[in-house]
């Protein structure tokens, strides 16, 4: 429990209306979207209105050694925002103004609480887009997705959040406010701070403003679906498309288990006797180029024994997307706990990884479906289990261990887009080694010596001496 004087000062900083302490409110901020994570009730939730308030809160927290858990919409999938050591939840839900849209410089300046989808809606009339599109675009905040370096469906062609952050204002644990980057395309002044704070999951500083890069919205697109009798055919199609020098905007894959589950619940006429489905979308500014790319995709699908469907109208495009849109919902309806991983492998190992996931599921007798972003090797092996079944939960934990081991064995990574948070901290050393973990500890100690920023996340505590 926080000392009353600290609460009084917090109230003084943000105002009575922007501070919550009731037990019920604390329950509402004790979790995020991650399954199978510990919950913890914070002591207080505050809603800062500007970066000066954030500075004052950080100074107060440092003085009293109170942890600060920054939070956007709390939709992350790594336990990143759970207030593990109680203390202060710093919610940016109400700091949600778009400060500037600058079509001349293809940029926008936003407060951290702006919803990604709201930014896209605001720039649409300028013919621009902000491309990063995690599954949560309609709910997740710019600040949260920057802190998590969120990916999405368009990663292959358009990159991920880090490719669209041009500048930031960050409040450090010292209470200093720093600004770096800006609207210039080129900027090599100082260290590349943006890339330090993007993906730092609230452990190194608190993002209070973002200058985001915008691009012209592609004018044309074609959507195609290929279904395959073997996973190898699907994997070879992905390679074939890249070999044909086509970079699709999206190239999504779903395995048989996922397809069967979607068909079972949504009844949209999917083939259930195929091993994989690829949903491919090519886009661009010139119709000729887009049509030529679609032809190349068509060829790759057919050459690899695939069955092809092509959308001619928006309605047909919508129908083709239905399977992918329904993948997670349909799987999630199978049981009360959804373990959604994001192990990622080099594109050339997609088939290997899909087979590995299926085998792991069988080995531990689990319901496991895999879908994901084939183009960038980012897969979502999804395990559906019953949280009240202890034995099943244990088998699930072992399966997850093996999924990560498999991804690393193929030269992949633990996390393509969800982040480390609490969920994957124990695997960190397997990927980056002791040296890597020590480098993280050094950075953390340098920037946050009192460990008040999102403690218990991402950076493993030094081993007890």
């Amino acid at each position, binding site marked *: 429990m926080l000392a009353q004087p600290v609460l009084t000062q917090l109230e003084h900083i943000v105002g009575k209306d922007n501070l*919550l302490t*009731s*037990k*019920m*409110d604390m*329950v*509402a*901020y*004790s*979790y*995020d*979207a991650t*399954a199978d994570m510990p919950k913890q009730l914070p002591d207080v939730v505050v*809603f800062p209105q500007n970066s000066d308030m954030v500075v004052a809160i950080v100074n107060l927290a440092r003085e009293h050694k109170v942890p600060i858990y920054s939070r956007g*919409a*709390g*939709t992350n999938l790594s336990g990143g925002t759970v207030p593990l050591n109680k203390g202060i939840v710093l*919610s940016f*839900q*109400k700091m*949600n103004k778009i400060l500037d849209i600058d079509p001349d410089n293809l940029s926008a300046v936003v407060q951290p*609480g702006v919803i990604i*989808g709201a930014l896209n809606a605001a720039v649409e009339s300028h013919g621009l887009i902000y491309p990063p599109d995690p599954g*949560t675009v*309609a*709910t997740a905040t710019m600040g949260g997705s920057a802190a998590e370096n969120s990916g999405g469906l368009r990663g292959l062609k358009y990159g991920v959040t880090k490719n669209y952050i041009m500048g930031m204002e960050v409040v450090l644990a010292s209470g200093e406010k720093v600004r770096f980057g800006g609207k210039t395309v080129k900027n090599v002044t100082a260290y590349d701070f943006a890339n330090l704070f993007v993906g730092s999951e609230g452990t190194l500083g608190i993002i209070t403003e973002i200058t985001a890069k915008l691009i012209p919205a592609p004018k044309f697109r074609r959507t195609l679906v290929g279904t395959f009798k073997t996973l190898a055919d699907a994997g070879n199609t992905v390679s074939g498309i890249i070999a044909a020098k086509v970079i699709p905007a999206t190239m999504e894959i779903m395995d048989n288990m996922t397809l069967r589950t979607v068909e079972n619940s949504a009844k949209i006429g999917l083939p259930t006797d195929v091993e994989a489905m690829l949903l491919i979308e090519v886009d661009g500014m010139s119709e000729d180029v887009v049509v030529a790319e679609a032809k190349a995709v068509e060829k790759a699908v057919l050459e690899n024994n695939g069955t092809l469907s092509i959308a001619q109208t928006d309605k047909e495009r919508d129908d083709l997307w239905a399977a992918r849109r329904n993948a*997670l*919902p349909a799987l*999630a*309806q199978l049981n*009360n*706990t*959804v373990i959604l991983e994001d192990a990622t492998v080099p594109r050339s190992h997609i088939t290997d990884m899909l087979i590995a996931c299926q085998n792991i599921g069988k080995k531990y007798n689990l319901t496991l479906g895999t879908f994901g972003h084939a183009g960038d090797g980012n897969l979502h092996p999804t395990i559906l289990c019953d*949280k009240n079944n202890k034995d099943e939960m244990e088998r699930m934990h072992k399966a997850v261990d093996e999924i990560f081991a498999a991804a690393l064995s193929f030269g992949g990574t633990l996390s393509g887009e969800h982040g480390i948070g609490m969920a994957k901290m124990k695997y960190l050393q397997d990927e980056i080694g002791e040296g890597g973990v020590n480098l993280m500890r050094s950075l953390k100690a340098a920037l946050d010596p009192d460990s008040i920023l999102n403690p218990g996340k991402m950076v493993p505590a030094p081993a007890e001496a």
Partner: protein
Amino acid sequence: MDTETLTKKKSSSFEELEAIREELDKCMKCGNCMAVCPVYGVEKQETSVTRSKIAIAEAVLDGVLELDDPQVYEMLFNCLVCKSCMSNCPTQVNFERIMLALRAALVRKNGLPWLKRMIFSTLKNPKLFDAGMRLGAAMQPLVFRGEQDGQAMAPRSPFALAGKSFGLDRERLLPGTTTKPLRERVPEVVGVQDAALHVAFFTGDSLNYFYPQAGEDLIAVLSANNIEVHIPKNQSCCGTPVLVHGDVETVRILARKNIDAMDASGCSHIITGCGSCGNAWQHDYPELLGSDPTYGPRAQYWAERTFDISTFLTKVIKLRPPKGRVERVVTYHDPCHLKKGMQVSAEPREILQSIPGLTLKEMKAPDRCCGSGGSFVLTHYETAASIGKQKAADIVQTGATAVATGCPACMMQLLDNLHRCGQDREIVHYISLLAESYRKEQAADSNA
């Protein structure tokens, strides 16, 4: 005492809070509800949105929080029960049932606050309720001063709405209660020669007391389509206004009365012109009376034979195409209970588009809640007004001169929303536009 024995036998979520556990478990806290929850959109706090309400319900079941903790009580009523979250939920959590079960549990634990008891008891007796409607003006300021002390929530009855219109807020614009309700204006049976079908019109209170003209239009449209309409005098309020306050027993009494009235009519279908009423017949009655051996099967029978007037006209019979021109630019608002409850959204548009001269201009997010939520607008006026402001802006942007919708409660809220921002528009039940077209056609025919 029959009721009591029955209630004891049954263990639905309306009787036993633990029965919602499985429903709660379905929620994966993904937060997709944040994208569509109108209350969260305005308040931007976790406790405003569905997934948190679910987390809090779990905490109540686990004994971490008390159901009658004042904060929990407050949270329970800070919800429009608009079902928007349910239409965006990947795991199809039936949040409406969770919310109503919590409210029912609260009523079981603490009893209905005295005000609710007073108002709801009048609903059980249509005669008394009628008298109340007439005497309403004199009584209401008193009742609402009682509500101001925070002890009670007002129901979504026109009774309460009438009260709000007298005295508390002069800015609030409402249709005046009519001196002669719909069911007194029309005979109990409106016949046609060689009727193709006989249907019962369940008017609901809002059409009966506030928009009797829309009710008459509905009857006229059915007549024009060669349908005989029965308007049983013995029907009561559908019960939604009390159900959302957790008074399950009153709703059961109303449901049985209504079923008796419809049974006695000898009709083949029930027609509604209000999303909440139709929703009660289609979903609430069968569930509430599920274990009642007499009324359970009747409720199920009628659930399958209850249609919104638009569905009846376009799916059950073949709408006689209207010929009279209605030169109007209209935008259509989807009522939550009509679209997200009764799954009706294409049919009213089909009807509007069949009217010669009428141009339908869609607004942005036509299914975004208008903020009424029955009594929510009374108990959470500021939030409701902020939600309504967005709706008004979306309407104004279309350039339409009239707003059509299919639920009287939305009509009241839209009237107020637009008036508050100085953008008064014609607010009309879509059925009235169809009736107008038929009338014009008839006038032209008789002139010829």
